[in-house]
């Protein structure tokens, strides 16, 4: 008799052979300039259960450009492993032809040229079309939202998440977990969660006072689909009060809590779960480690680190699905569950090419309804760009270079710091920069741009601290962001060293002099996690700067020297 482990591996091999992951097929079709919606959605329904996964939308309701990272370094056991493979290596790994739509969707090279050819991606009206098509084939498919949904745009900020709640409700998700949602503040968060027509979950969302599961969030829920008793366990972002301002949600505590996760898995299995799905906002490497520790999870739908992978990653008998960000992708996972066991799977990462996938009229109208009160503010053109503006990458992105330039000049600082977040769409050369575009890369509930004095020694402490949040070889100590972006200063980083020894050669760019550990420097930054931070909002700082520039033109950033790869 074939063991379950063998079966999964056979199925995986078959996927690769026949392109049943849906990947090789559309890459070839697109190369023939024959990409259609039917081909993007083509999927031979398999088994008895379908999962639809979308995550990290960051309030992007309309189609956008989104450039994937060039630099995404894996450390420790994840060195050179997906998702830490980019560009040509990524295309080679998955058999993607150069210049194909999958090249455009999944890698960074030639982004501006391919963006002109293949157009924008995402848009929740297009996502609605995809969800409906999957539900047409499998009416009881589960739609699961991995969180970071109610954050990231002008309208989301001004409606405190209501615009996204309204539009997502129209898509009828079954469950959701959370991260940036908590930065709306715990009162608003509770208000929105109470009104949700679906399950709000996170087994690791605890009451901070009593260190026991928080009453407002379910650890898990059961769903009977295709005759299968499915348990979905939620896992919110573990480092919320550390990476984001804890004072905005003081009643809650998080953490990975993998032993509690094991307890939940055992509990749902004891209650008869035949399939255990974890809807996670851990980040890919954290989920990968957790999959090796917690026994009995069949599928982890990962989120947070914004990785898009065209094939599942297998850890033991658990499959990990990574579905990208900003509404750019939807994953469909079909499963064959028999006798209380997952016997096989079929998976497809569906890229939401907005020019190929039709708009759903109802959801499009609903989106316009959310935007209408803000139409004139959103569409105001602030400037133009001659450069590709993007954010993703471990050390810098051109959007962040522009934001740091704005901080240096508008706040009269010597050094600027911009947080290494992974959200924020791209703009291509020749694009107008609208107010909406600026808010897409800056909006948050703690956007005040501070200006303060820091010693050279303390700046190094900050860089060392943030670097260890990314390059600690143990994924459980990684918070899933990128390196803090620095303006006005160069430095070298050896990622292979321990905390305290990674950063060297800090140089003030305006003078070319080495940073003096004992001297005070004027530092401007934004997104402080501390309560009571004062300063103008970052989007106003950036808007003023771009207005003065008229047309933005950025030189490549060469101020970070990376070694120890």
């Amino acid at each position, binding site marked *: 008799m074939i063991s379950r482990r063998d079966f999964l591996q056979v199925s995986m091999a078959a996927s690769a052979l026949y392109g049943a992951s849906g990947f090789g097929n559309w890459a070839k079709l697109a190369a023939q300039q024959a990409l259609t919606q039917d081909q993007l959605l083509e999927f031979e329904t398999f088994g008895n259960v379908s999962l639809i996964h979308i995550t990290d939308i960051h309030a992007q309701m309309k189609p956008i450009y989104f450039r994937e990272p060039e630099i995404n370094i894996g450390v420790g056991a994840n060195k050179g492993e997906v998702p830490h493979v980019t560009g040509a290596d990524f295309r080679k790994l998955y058999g993607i032809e150069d210049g194909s739509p999958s090249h455009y969707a999944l890698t960074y090279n030639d982004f501006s040229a391919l963006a002109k050819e293949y157009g924008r991606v995402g848009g929740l009206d297009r996502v609605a079309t995809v969800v409906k098509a999957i539900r047409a084939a499998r009416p009881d498919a589960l739609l699961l939202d991995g969180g970071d949904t109610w954050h990231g745009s002008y309208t989301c900020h001004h409606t405190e998440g209501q615009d996204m709640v309204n539009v997502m409700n129209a898509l009828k998700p079954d469950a959701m977990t959370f991260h940036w949602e908590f930065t709306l503040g715990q009162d608003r968060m509770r208000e929105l969660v109470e009104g949700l027509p679906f399950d709000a979950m996170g087994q690791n969302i605890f009451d901070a006072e009593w260190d026991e599961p928080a009453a407002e969030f379910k650890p898990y829920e059961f769903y009977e689909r295709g005759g299968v008793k499915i348990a979905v366990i939620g896992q919110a972002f573990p480092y919320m009060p*550390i990476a984001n301002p804890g004072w905005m949600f003081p009643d809650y505590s998080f953490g990975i809590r993998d032993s509690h996760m094991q307890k939940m898995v055992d509990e749902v299995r004891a209650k008869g779960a035949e399939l255990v799905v974890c809807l996670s906002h851990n980040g890919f490497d954290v989920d990968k480690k957790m999959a090796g520790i917690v026994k009995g999870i069949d599928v982890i739908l990962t989120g947070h680190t914004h990785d898009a992978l065209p094939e599942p990653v297998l850890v033991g008998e658990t499959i990990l699905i990574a579905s990208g960000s900003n509404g750019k992708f939807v994953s469909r996972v079909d499963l064959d569950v028999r006798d209380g066991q997952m016997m096989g799977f079929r998976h497809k990462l569906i890229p939401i090419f907005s020019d190929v996938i039709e708009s759903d009229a109802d959801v499009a109208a609903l989106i316009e309804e959310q935007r209408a009160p803000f139409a004139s503010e959103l569409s105001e053109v602030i400037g133009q760009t001659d450069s590709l503006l993007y954010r993703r990458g471990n050390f810098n992105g051109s959007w962040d270079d522009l934001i740091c330039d704005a901080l240096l000049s508008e706040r009269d600082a010597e050094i600027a710091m911009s947080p290494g977040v992974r959200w924020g769409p791209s703009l291509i050369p020749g694009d107008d920069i609208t107010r909406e575009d600026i808010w897409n890369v800056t909006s948050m509930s703690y956007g005040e741009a501070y200006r303060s004095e820091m010693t050279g020694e303390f700046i190094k402490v900050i860089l060392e601290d943030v670097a260890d949040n990314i390059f600690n070889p143990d994924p459980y100590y990684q918070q899933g962001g990128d390196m803090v972006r620095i303006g006005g200063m160069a430095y070298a980083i050896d990622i292979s060293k321990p905390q305290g020894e990674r950063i060297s050669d800090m140089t003030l760019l305006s003078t070319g002099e080495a940073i003096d550990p004992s001297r005070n420097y004027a530092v401007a930054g934004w*997104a402080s996690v501390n309560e009571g931070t004062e300063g103008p909002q970052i989007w106003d700082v950036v808007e003023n700067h771009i207005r003065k520039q008229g047309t933005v033109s950025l030189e490549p950033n060469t101020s970070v020297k990376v070694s120890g790869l």
Partner: protein
Amino acid sequence: MDFTRRETLVIGAATAAVVTLPMPAMASAVDDAIAEFTGGADVSDGGVDLEAPEIAENGNTVPIEVGAEGASAIMVLAAGNPTPGVATFNFGPLAGAQSAKTRIRLAGTQDVIAVAKMADGSFAKAQKNVKVTIGGCGG
């Protein structure tokens, strides 16, 4: 990220201090405490459960839980604190479970260690690294 507030500066300074601390001095204080608890007996790994966050949400109050089936006592040490000793929990013969939960203060990133005296008089330990960080840049 903002570093204007005093408490952040204090955390930052603590983080920096740990990096440069003369570790051997610390290690010996921990070794001494363990030796005193065990009377110099061998300490094996395993059989002790130690729950602690990987990254502390607040270094001033870090929830931890220790347990070891059948243990008569469990000692908890914070290896990087100026005074490593945290607590020793003693379990009488009528104790329903040999586990305890408390909150501890950590001066910086360090190992938390639990050493249990088992029913047969042997000793076992578990340890976990708890990171105290400035944070603020996860995204």
